[in-house]
């Protein structure tokens, strides 16, 4: 069968892809351009839009809260990557055959299964200055309580630790599947050449885990950049806005109780989008180059 001069073989993949492409265009690609467009307007979401050119961006450049959010985003990006080595070591640790290992694996994976909202709540209680487990422990050891979520110095780190818990589990599962694919003959060969411990890990195992590492980095970076739910649940961006990240700040300006500045929110979204696209394309490019081996 031929249609428009195309064979069934060329046509079929596109037909199968069509629904996905269609949805992707409508819900991902189109909103990007809509956001960029809205960012040039002053609009409360209800009334008339007024075109104000780059005014939103000018204001953004002079907005302390924006820089706080940006700084926090960078801290998130860097510290969130700790999930990858942590996930790798848990995976290595769990990659053995003892009785009940499946149960242990599921338990380690558990934090990723429960909702981020629950993770946020659990950690809020953990950090609670009067009744929280962390401060009870600190008091027993003779230290003063630390109100992690009410102190601008610690709050972002406190939330990141909460975020690392499920993210580590995610990286762990990626590495566990990766470890299944590690070639036992290469391990054997390495052993014959007297490779042990760290050397074995670094030169024999890790190179074979490259696909898993790649996926881990991508999901972790994206996870760090869209860190919204934990901030919203644990602090609402507080105290006094010091734990905001760009995603949350955008939400606060555009959709929260006192917000509804759609144009300004969209401008923040555009900045976040640019950071993501730059970071990810640089990363993909680097990956691609490494793959080709020069």
């Amino acid at each position, binding site marked *: 069968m031929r249609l428009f001069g195309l064979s069934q073989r060329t046509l079929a993949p596109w037909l199968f892809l069509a629904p996905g492409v269609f949805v992707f265009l409508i819900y991902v690609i189109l909103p990007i351009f809509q956001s960029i467009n809205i960012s040039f307007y002053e609009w409360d*979401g*209800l009334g008339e839009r007024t075109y104000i050119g780059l005014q939103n961006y000018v204001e953004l450049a002079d907005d302390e809260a924006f820089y706080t959010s940006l700084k926090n985003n960078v801290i998130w990006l860097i510290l969130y990557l700790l999930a990858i080595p942590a996930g790798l070591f848990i995976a290595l640790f769990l990659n053995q055959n003892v009785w009940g290992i499946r149960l242990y694996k599921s338990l380690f994976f558990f934090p990723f299964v429960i909702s981020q909202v629950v993770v946020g709540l659990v950690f809020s209680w953990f950090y609670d200055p009067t009744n929280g487990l962390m401060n009870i422990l600190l008091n027993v050891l003779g230290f003063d309580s630390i109100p992690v979520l*009410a102190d601008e110095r610690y709050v972002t780190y406190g939330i990141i630790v909460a975020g690392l818990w499920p993210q580590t589990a995610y990286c762990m599962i990626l590495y566990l599947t990766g470890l299944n694919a590690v070639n036992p003959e290469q391990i054997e060969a390495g052993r014959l050449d007297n490779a042990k411990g760290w050397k074995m890990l670094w030169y024999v195992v890790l190179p074979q885990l490259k696909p898993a590492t790649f996926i881990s980095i991508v999901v972790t970076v994206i996870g760090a950049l869209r860190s919204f739910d934990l901030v919203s649940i644990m602090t609402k961006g507080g105290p*006094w806005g010091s734990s905001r990240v760009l995603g949350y700040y955008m939400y606060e300006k555009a959709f929260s109780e006192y917000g509804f500045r759609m144009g300004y929110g969209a401008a923040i979204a555009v900045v976040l989008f640019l950071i993501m696209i730059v970071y990810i394309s640089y990363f993909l490019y680097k990956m691609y180059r490494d793959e080709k081996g020069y």
Partner: protein
Amino acid sequence: MKLNFKQLLAVLALISFGGSMSASELVINTDTSDPAPKKAFEDLIEGFKAENPGIEVTWNLFDHEGYKTSIRNFLTADAPDVANWYAGNRMLPYVNAGLFEPVEDLWESEGLNESLKSALPSMTIDGHIWGVPYTYYQWGVYYRKDIFEDLGIAVPTNWDEFKQAGATLIDKGITPITIGTKYLWTAAGVFDYINLRTNGYDFHMALTRGEIPWTDERVRATMANWQELVDAGFFIENHAAYAWQEALAPMVNGEAAMYVMGNFSVALFREAGLTDDQLGFFQFPTITAGIPVAEEAPTDTVHIPANAKNKENARKFLAYIARADVQTQINATLGQLPINSGSEVADDKFLTAGFEMLSNADGGIAQFFDRDAPAEMAEAGMQGFQEFMVKPERLDDILDRLEKVRQRVYQ
């Protein structure tokens, strides 16, 4: 990344209330999801149905917090016939966008200009009346009467007595005031009162209307008074980590003795086990002598959206909720005060005290910081107050920042 909420909501709305389009319908959206308000509205709607058997009422109950964002969508996409909201500046965006219907005809025909007179100013924008108020409640200081009596502290009526009372409490290892500022608005309650008492109602309203710079000396005077309390250790530690409900605990346990709050807290205090012998209420003490006393009493309201389909029935409902006997009943359930001057205040010591206090508020009645000031100013202000309560040394930075916001918001 962003769904078109309007479209989504339109679809949901069609599914939920598009079913039967008979001539006499009434769709009501409310945010009364807490137990007492929910019960009050159940009774209210039952009562309305009994008197208007021809009207088929659909009631959509929204989560209290979620309502604040969904109201924007349903007012534009597929409007109900009645929606509840708040008086003052909180309704301004919807009035400006033409989403509420003016109802002065109803006020005229039902004689509400008389019976609801006290709330008329907060319902009027641009010379039109935009809804019907059905309840309000006082703010003030809720305190542990038993602790005060044990320590021989008299109820403070002025600033020096107040500070003295606090000092006595601190001596005994009790924190004078509990507060949870995680959700910010509690700090605004404290600011409102100190500002109303330091500079008076007119100044406070001018400030929230954006007519006075935040760097004004009078604002600094307010903040200086507040700082006296902060420096003396009046407020519980780590308050930025707690929601207002969590901050009830220290007071219930006797670790703190006062809470600057609205009357809705009484139900929770009672639920937590405080008896009426332990819990008391007093008016926020005088700071600058001679200023006419103003109070804070937020008003809750119902409105007819401009896009409503059954406006006749909606008017019937608004007339019903404005009636003296109905307001008596609904407020008895809510544990709040009726607006209608012909209504009776429920037999409860906090309500009678509040009613007494508000009836004598010659200075005026403020709504609340986030209802008197526009949304963006309110948010920046409340964040500033929270920061000030923890880092009072940053006062200058905070006021400069608020001034910057003011100049942009009110331009």
